[in-house]
């Protein structure tokens, strides 16, 4: 019976740890499917975490915190889009710059605002669906989660549908694979890319909001700890498909969860090796997939209308 609970706890922990990754990966998905490389997911996660923490701190209302995070994330996305689509800055440089700025400014402002206080923020509680939540294992996993999880599941399904069965999805795929075709069909490549990148900012930010409002309940400098980069690895591992990438995030979350459960399993592995594990797995995933996971053809390449000829 004990092992059963242990396993159930482990699954739940894995799920929880994968949520911020999955939001970020979903955001990265939209951006990269439109052909814009997005290394700034880390910075967007951090922005979302910081903004939701700050607004919740001042207003004691976590829902406002969430809204603020989405708006802030959208603004960061707007910046990345402006830099890489309009100004045609190299997309890698733009992403890196945003990460550096986000990290610097959030660290600085956090000192001013929180001033070392570790007072827990009011968070978001789980929603329990009566009846269904009594089912062993699956009950807790699927029917006793907070709104973020349900939202994520919906978004994943919605995204899959959008990509393959709507005009927007078709346009998105065309812009990411061969922009001149979309251009000459009368579509605006920059508009699509702006839209996609702003969305990626909003989604990644939501992941950050989850960190501060559900998981950790306060803001720590640099709390994203590379999750934005693991999300990118998950995207590649999932072959740029919403469901595949989400599953990859689950895998990485499971790896991170090992660290928390390892004492309970009774093994004597130093915690640092367990901390390393998600990153090692991510690298191995990338190596294993090399050559077989094909990105959108136009990913990372600046495009302007003159490039048609």
């Amino acid at each position: 019976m004990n092992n059963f609970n242990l396993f159930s706890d482990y699954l739940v922990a894995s799920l929880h740890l994968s949520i911020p990754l999955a939001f970020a990966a979903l955001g990265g998905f939209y951006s990269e499917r439109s052909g814009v490389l997005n290394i700034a997911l880390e910075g967007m996660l951090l922005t979302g975490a910081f903004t939701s923490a700050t607004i919740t701190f001042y207003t004691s209302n976590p829902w406002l915190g969430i809204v603020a995070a989405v708006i802030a994330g959208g603004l960061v996305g707007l910046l990345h889009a402006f830099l890489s689509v309009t100004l045609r800055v190299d997309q890698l440089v733009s992403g890196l710059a945003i990460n550096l700025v986000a990290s610097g400014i959030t660290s600085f402002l956090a000192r001013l605002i929180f001033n070392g206080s570790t007072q827990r923020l009011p968070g978001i509680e789980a929603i329990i669906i009566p009846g269904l939540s009594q089912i062993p294992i699956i009950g807790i996993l699927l029917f006793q989660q907070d709104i973020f999880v349900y939202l994520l599941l919906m978004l994943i399904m919605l995204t899959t549908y959008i990509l393959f069965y709507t005009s927007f999805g078709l346009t998105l795929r065309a812009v990411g694979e061969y922009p001149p075709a979309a251009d000459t069909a009368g579509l605006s490549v920059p508009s699509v890319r702006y839209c996609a990148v702003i969305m990626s900012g909003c989604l990644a930010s939501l992941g950050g909001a989850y960190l501060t409002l559900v998981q950790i309940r306060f803001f720590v400098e640099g709390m994203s700890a590379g999750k934005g980069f693991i999300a990118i690895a998950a995207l590649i591992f999932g072959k740029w498909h919403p469901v595949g990438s989400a599953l990859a995030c689950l895998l990485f979350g499971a790896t991170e969860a090992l660290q928390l459960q390892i004492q309970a399993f009774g093994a004597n592995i130093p915690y640092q090796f367990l901390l390393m594990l998600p990153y090692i797995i991510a690298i191995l995933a990338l190596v294993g997939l090399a050559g077989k996971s094909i990105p959108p053809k136009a990913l990372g390449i600046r495009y302007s209308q003159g490039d048609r000829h």
Partner: protein
Amino acid sequence: MIYLQLENITKHFNSFIANDKINLTIESGKIHGILGENGAGKTTLMNILSGFYQPDSGNIYLEGKRVKINSPRAAIKLGIGMIYQHFMLVPQLTVTENIILGTESKWHLNLQKKQQEITNLSQLYQLEINPNAKVKDLPVGTQQRVEILKVLYRGAKLLILDEPTAVLAPQEVTSLITILRQLALRGNTIIFISHKLAEVINLCDTVTVLRHGQAVATINSKNTTTHELAELMVGRKLSLNLQKSPASLGKLVLSVENLQVTDDRGINAVHNISFQLREGEIFGIAGVDGNGQRELADAIAGLQPIKAGKIDCSSVGTKIGYIPEDRQKMGLVLQFNVGENLILRSFQKFPFCHQFLLQKQAIKNHAQVAMQAFDIRTNCADIQVSQLSGGNQQKVVLARELAGEPRLIIAMQPTRGLDVGATELVHQKLLAERGRGAAILYISTELEEVIAISDRIAVMYKGKFMDILDPEKTTVEEIGLLMGGGKKS
């Protein structure tokens, strides 16, 4: 009835006049050719008609009504369908998805219904396609049909085709011509942009020749000849014959036996090719792009591993000159200047490198000598090669590859994108090398050139030599047939 009229269309780019008071009328149901060299203004005119640029002055009339074509969307709405030389298709999407791209904004794409519509349309116009196929799996000729269907689906009445036969095999060309004639009979108006004289005369009812941005003549194709058109295009009397002395063959330079080479994807690109090359000989290889020419050239140059067979050029040592088919992508480093590009193969050798350091003066001197010998025109020797014209860029490549008197020269599409003057120089230099005793492999899609310059011609199709011919005894038609996989009768 006049369908399209252009009145005094003019377009500047800074001080460069791309289109200079161009006047044009085309009747509906007719096929009108636009001929011109690179830089003559064809592309600009086409971009104006498809809504990409706006003319600085002048008017456009469609069916007698004055129109403004402000954007590609506007052009589509006016019934203008543009078919580009490089297809505007997304390879990873299906035919149906490509055709409906950008036509509507829906939350539910009814793909089944669309597929049916497209199948009906393709049957109506007799353009056979499979709506479910992914574009990247289709042969080039079929992809072009998808492009045509795309504009017809959007209701195009005026079709503009830009160099549509550049990548087609001869039978695919015949197919296309049939389709275009049919469309014209149905009342569509067609503009056919090309630099291939024979095709234009064959297909088009009327032809306009552009030169230096101006429309220098509009002629009925029945009343002219390819020679007259060529002279109008270039503006001077042409000598289409090269001064070629009879071949005096020397020692064996290259021997290829049963060669098999695979391409980057592991597919066999060269199947069992054997031939020999001697000093003082130009061996031409004709064929449509993508039939294994690149893999063959790379293998002989030592850049691609061989799967089976033998390449023997040991008597040559390492003196091989290789002129690649894309000078900007493969032959030059655009950010380097002329001197730095010239030492690309020899930067580790004396005199350019001495005591572990590059010798600036030696590099500079070398550049000056080369620029003189090859007539490379530039204001300043220090600028990046990206600023040079296509012709001058190719001269840099030539200067580098022909330096040091190589015994074997591999030239891939050496005159691609070059104007007549630069083309003449390339041929001159290669013939000079031949006179010096070099063996030259001349691989090109330009049949007239290959016939004029080669001593022997091989026709390559799907990785094999269909036949090896004597240029003086063969014809363009015979070679064209072999290029398309047909057998010699």
